[in-house]
């Protein structure tokens, strides 16, 4: 068989993933109960980084923080239903996307004192500009897979899309980046 250059593995297979359980945590999920708090905290610790990274890739660090908090607050408010879902993280990403659409459209701004610059966000200017020229879906796929090292499956679950969708966005995004940046690799 053809032996191309080395690549990555991780699409389409369940690797070390726990068996699916539709909310079968066996805990009292009444809002506010101690068990609900514990189960939610456990979920949030796993979900928050993935959600935050996807939102940061899509909307930038400032809006991502707002959307991430809104999504997790929503999850807490509806914890009994959310925890019963097959893919709650993907669901919350879509919650955040809907919030982003309303947020951007009606230009609501967080009520925080503004600073002139973000210290600590000092990306390579050409790369940052090139990423901004990708579609949002392509940018998120590229940053999650090649930036944060997520597998296709992890990225697909976070974004609540099929693995093939991640793959398509990634391929197109990388091709476009290479064209914009005039690089071969």
């Amino acid at each position, binding site marked *: 068989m*053809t032996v191309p250059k080395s690549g990555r593995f991780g699409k389409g297979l369940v690797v070390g993933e726990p068996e699916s359980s539709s909310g079968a945590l066996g805990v009292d999920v009444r809002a506010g109960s101690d068990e609900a708090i514990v189960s939610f905290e456990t979920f949030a610790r796993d979900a928050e*980084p993935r959600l935050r990274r996807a939102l940061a890739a899509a909307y930038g660090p400032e809006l991502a923080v707002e959307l991430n908090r809104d999504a997790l607050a929503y999850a807490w408010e509806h914890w009994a239903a959310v925890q019963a879902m097959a893919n709650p993280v993907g669901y919350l990403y879509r919650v955040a996307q809907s919030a982003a659409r309303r947020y*951007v459209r009606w230009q609501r701004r967080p009520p925080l004192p503004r600073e002139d610059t973000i210290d600590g966000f000092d990306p390579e200017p050409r790369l940052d500009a090139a990423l901004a020229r990708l579609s949002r879906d392509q940018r998120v796929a*590229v940053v999650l897979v090649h*930036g944060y090292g997520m597998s296709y499956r992890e990225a697909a679950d976070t974004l609540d899309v099929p693995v*093939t969708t991640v793959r398509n966005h990634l391929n197109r995004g990388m091709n476009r980046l290479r064209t914009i940046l005039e690089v071969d690799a």
Partner: protein
Amino acid sequence: MTDTLEHRLRRYAVTLERATIAHDLRVTDIEHDLRDVPEVAVAGGRALPRPRPVLLAVTAAGLLVGIGISVGLGQRSSGPGDAPRAPVPVATASLPPGAIAVPQAFTDPAPAVWDDVPMAAGVVGWYDVGDAVPGRVADEFADPRYLARFLRCARWTGDGRTDPPTCDAVQGGVLSGGVNYRPSTARELGVMSSIGTDVDVKAAAWAQADGSVWGYETFTTPPDPNPFSVGGMSVFGYRNGDHAQLTWQPAPGNIVSLDGRGFTDEELLALVSQLRPVTLPSVLPLTFQVRAPAKRPALVVGWLRGRRCATFDPDHSCVPFGEGDAIVQGGAFFGQVPAVAALVAPASTARFDVEVAGGDHRTPVGDQPSVFGHEVIVHDDERALPIAARLVYSDGRVVEQMVEANQATPPTTGVTLPA
């Protein structure tokens, strides 16, 4: 070491992560300070979200563990046009008779559970390799709700006017999902299927092999996969180190792929003849998913508690509708709903061209073949601008409407259908 694009992206992700966390810490500090303030009034009509002790503790704890951040905080411009624009009056327009507004956002916490639709006998499904490979893990199609996301009914029996019809052709799930095996940490196997797709099997093999990610990116056309003959079928394969895929078409409208890590070529080829069909459940909560313009969610139509129902978010609110009702989303006309049977075929070949006009920013949204007869894309995701939609029919008719405006309250008017 060559500074590849992947290396640059990893550095980008590091700086993005630091900046996001730093900003979140700053927000946490401010919310701590504001917790005792009874009311926070904010320009723009959005109050500061009241932090819940649980959420605040989780967020702060998660951010601080193992991370040493010592950066300052600030604002990153999120795009052009930071200053809010003055509201522009929306041109008055009347909704078509019988218009119903389909919720766009999350207003109902209870996820919609679609009625089960009986599946006709003989609908092809997924495959597995039985006991030929040990270590079977959770099947991705075991949960009908998960499965229904990737499937839709392509052909319904009956006219759907009375009892829910039967689905006798399923579409979707292109090489996603399936049955997975993990006999050891060094060996993994996925058996993935697509149903009802009209995809060239070689193109499917290329897509499954991720060729453009694994080093084929300099090719303008994919190299031909290696062909094999198994039981009279043409099977196509790619390999990348210890990872290989075999893809073939066992039946019309059905493509199967074996995706193996740690399996030899001979082992994978032997598994092809071990494949056996795993039929779909006899009922599935399937829906129609109507094609949507770019950046817009698809209109999902299904049966809910015995009534046809439409939504733009299948996990949330659903609005019952009747034949001929008009769908309105966000104050903008989406289209009229024909009979259920007509939903699977285009109702019109009307072409339309919509331009977003406002200030010095023009965004051609593009034209889309219409399912309902005509569709209007009405908003620009990136900016809130006064929008004029220009709708051009294939017979040359041009309709110009103001369909949405930049204002704090949601628009409530729609588009008058041209005569």
